[in-house]
């Protein structure tokens, strides 16, 4: 458990399993977690979390619906370089472009696009739903600390992140080919899986994220 005082702020834009995410952060952080759609709350955040269940376009529209939220996010995450975690669709909106229900521009924080999963085995089901084993490409990142090679995480998605730069992919999963599981650069991190629903592995990941200063 972290000794320093963290003030994680979870963005609630009206969709998604918000309570599950808040609960997992409370479990790790000892109860001091704020969920909000108010951009003024971002200034006091130590860590910013964008959860996501839903469609890419809905996530983007949901964020834009709250005046100043996107600008506040850019100010805190890109200018002030606060540690940022995007979960599932919250990770996908970091991309340049989403191709779910038409084309939608993302934040372009990590270059690449969000495309439908096309497994090379036609018997594989879509959505990719359930526990899959993480394949780490990068093992020295602080948020991956203590996660062993056989770690399983919970996935539930039909679209995946194809990055331009392979170095931005920290971990993948095998599902008829490799699918991006964790992306990151600088103070940004994103998971296709749901750490809030990945039991011990997920809580460890969240604890690591909260212990990370973004460098």
């Amino acid at each position, binding site marked *: 458990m972290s000794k320093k005082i963290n003030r994680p702020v979870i963005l609630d834009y*009206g*969709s*998604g*399993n*918000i*309570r*599950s995410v808040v*609960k*997992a952060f409370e*479990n790790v952080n000892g109860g001091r977690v704020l969920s909000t759609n108010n951009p003024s709350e971002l200034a006091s955040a130590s860590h910013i979390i964008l959860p996501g*269940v*839903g*469609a890419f376009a*809905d996530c983007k529209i949901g964020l834009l619906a709250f005046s100043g939220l996107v600008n506040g996010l850019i100010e805190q995450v890109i200018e002030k370089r606060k540690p940022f975690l995007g979960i599932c*669709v919250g990770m996908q909106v970091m991309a340049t472009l989403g191709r779910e*229900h038409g084309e939608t521009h993302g934040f372009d924080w990590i270059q690449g696009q969000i495309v439908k999963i096309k497994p090379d085995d036609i018997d*594989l*089901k*879509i*959505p*990719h*739903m*359930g*526990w*899959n*084993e993480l394949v780490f490409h990068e093992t020295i990142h602080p948020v991956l600390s203590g996660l062993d090679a*056989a770690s*399983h995480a*919970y*996935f*539930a*998605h*039909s679209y995946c992140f194809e990055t331009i730069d392979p170095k931005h992919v920290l971990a993948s*999963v*095998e*599902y008829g080919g490799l699918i991006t599981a964790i992306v990151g650069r600088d103070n940004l991190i994103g998971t296709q899986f*749901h750490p*809030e*629903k*990945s*039991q*011990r592995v*997920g*809580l460890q990941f969240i604890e690591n994220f909260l212990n990370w200063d973004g460098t």
Partner: protein
Amino acid sequence: MLKVRIIPCLDVDKGRVVKGVNFVDLIDAGDPVEQAKIYDLAGADELCFLDITASSEGRETIFDVVSQTAEQCFMPVTVGGGVRGVDDIRKLLLAGADKVTINTGAIQNPNFVQEASLKFGSQCIVVAIDAKRKDDRFEIFTHGGRIETGLDAIDWARRMADYGAGEILLTSMDKDGTKSGFDIELTKAIADAVVVPVIASGGVGTLDHMVEGVRDGNASAVLAASIFHFGNYSIQEVKTHMDAAGIAVRSV
């Protein structure tokens, strides 16, 4: 590699876990909050919480019980019972659900499934199908099995997947509570008909039944209630047995 999911199911009536045979003659099987805690610690891959009398009694899902139950879980929780509109889904998500199952609400208004999957994403929307053999086909029943619809189960499953359901929770009403194994013919017919994952439900009595649901029924996940609630088998015993049968499961 993606693992086959083992899903304990809490059928909840008036805040208590119950279990019946062929959807009737309910007996008490404990407190959902305590059960959820046990299953989470045991490494269940998901939890299913069904408020089984919500539709038949025409009332809302009991949000406080859902909330207390979900509070114990760091695995995905799917909640069903009385889900009729996007407001119901938002309320359940706020109570701690990760996915919702829609059954009667889909039959009364199929477009609701489209609306729900567009708003919350397909991965959040599970369509539950309760099917029973009738003549030479499988027919859908609603209201906890009390009302027949005339709908063919395979056609309906395809339509629901087309409408954006991310998963099908398939229960054989003929098998439910009988401990005689899944209806493999039904499970395979639906699993092979849709691109989305199918959760097999209804009839598990032995460890071999769990294996059969996946190996012969092509299910992506297996759901059971009474064998877990009454302590016949633990989650770990199921996983060990499935692993020995060559089915990939997540070790805890």
